[in-house]
C-alpha cells in the first residue's frame, strides 16, 4: 500500500469527511457520493447494526485503515458495541453475533470474493431471513462501502499502523 498520497484534499475545508477528502477534487461526482452515503445510513431497509457489520467486514477485507477505525454512532446506539464489532473476524460464525448479523457477514464475503458469488446454501439462508428488498438494500450498502474504502486505499497516504477507534456521526459524511 502506498504511503504517499496520490491526490490532495481541496483547499477549502467544510467539516464533511467526504467533501474534505481527495474526493472533493471531483465536483461532478462529489454531491452524489455524499447523498449516497446519507441515503444508505438514513434510508436503508436494514438496521444500522447490519450496515455497520458489513461496512466493518468490508473495511477489514479491503484493509482500509481509516475505515477500520471508524464506528458510526448510529450503529453504536443501535447496539453494536465494540465487543460485538470485534466478533466480525475470521471466527464470526461461532461468535455470539445474531443469525442476521452472521448472514450479513456471509453476504459481504460472497460479494467480496474473487470471483463474487452466492452459494446455494447461503442463498437459501438469506431467503429465509431477509426480504428481497432488504437484500437489495444490503447490496447497495455493500457497493457504497466497498467503493469508498477501495478509493481510500487507491488514493494512498494511509498509515500502516491501526488508528484508534473514532466515533462518527452520520452527519459528518452526509451534510
Amino acid at each position, binding site marked *: *500500500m*502506498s504511503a*504517499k498520497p*496520490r*491526490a*490532495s484534499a481541496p483547499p477549502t475545508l467544510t467539516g464533511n469527511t467526504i467533501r474534505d477528502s*481527495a*474526493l472533493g*477534487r*471531483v465536483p*461532478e*461526482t462529489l454531491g*452524489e*457520493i455524499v*447523498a*449516497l452515503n446519507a*441515503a*444508505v445510513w438514513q*434510508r*436503508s*431497509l436494514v438496521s444500522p447494526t447490519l450496515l455497520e457489520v458489513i461496512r466493518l467486514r468490508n473495511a477489514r477485507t*479491503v*484493509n482500509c485503515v481509516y475505515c477500520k477505525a471508524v464506528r458510526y454512532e448510529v450503529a453504536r446506539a443501535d447496539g453494536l458495541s465494540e465487543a460485538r464489532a470485534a466478533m466480525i473476524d475470521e471466527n464470526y460464525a461461532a461468535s455470539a453475533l445474531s443469525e442476521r448479523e452472521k448472514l450479513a457477514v456471509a*453476504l459481504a464475503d*460472497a*460479494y*467480496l470474493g*474473487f*470471483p*463474487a*458469488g*452466492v*452459494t*446455494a446454501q447461503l*442463498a*437459501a439462508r*438469506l*431467503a429465509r431471513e431477509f426480504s*428481497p*428488498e432488504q*437484500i*437489495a*438494500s444490503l*447490496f*447497495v*450498502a*455493500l*457497493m*457504497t462501502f*466497498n*467503493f*469508498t474504502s*477501495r*478509493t481510500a*486505499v*487507491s*488514493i*494512498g497516504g494511509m498509515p500502516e499502523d491501526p488508528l484508534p477507534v473514532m466515533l462518527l456521526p452520520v452527519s459528518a459524511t452526509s451534510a
Partner: protein
Amino acid sequence: MDAAASATSLDLDRHLARAGSPAASFARLWQSLWVQPYVTPALLEMCRLTLARLHQDERELAAPNPHVEPGTLTGERLRIVLAGGTLKSPLFSPAEKAVLLFTECYGLDPQSIADDVADAVKDHLGEPGLVFLIEALGCIDGRIRTARCLRDLARLVPGWEGADVR
C-alpha cells in the same frame, strides 16, 4: 427467464430499485460516470471490460454498453481489450495504456497499485482525473460483483423473479 438471472453492471439499477432511495442515488452516481470531462465513455468502457475479464464474467463481457456510441470500440481494438493485450499493442495511446494498466492493478488489489502506475495516470488525466478514475473503477467493480451475486440468487431462490422491478 428471470431478468435478474442475466443482470450485469449495465442494467443493475432496475434490479436494485426496490431498495429505494439509496439505490436511486447509486443509479444517479452511475449515470454521472459516463458524462464527465476526465475519461471518455469509450475508455471507461475499456476499463469495464478489463474488470469483467479479470472477474472472468462472460455475461458482463458480452453486454452492450448503452453509454458508448455504437462503433466507438469495435474490431481489432475491442478484440485486444477482451484478450487483455492492450499494454503491448500499438493501437492504444499512452494515455489509454496508463489508464488500463491502473485498472488491471486496481482489479487485482488496490493495495498493489505502484506509485509510478498512478503517476502515469496523473500525467495524462491530472489529479482530479485520477481521483475520478478511482471512483469509477470502484463503482464498476462493485456493480459487476453485485450483478454476479444477483444472478446466483435468481438461479437459486425460487420466486426471486418477483423481486425484480421493471
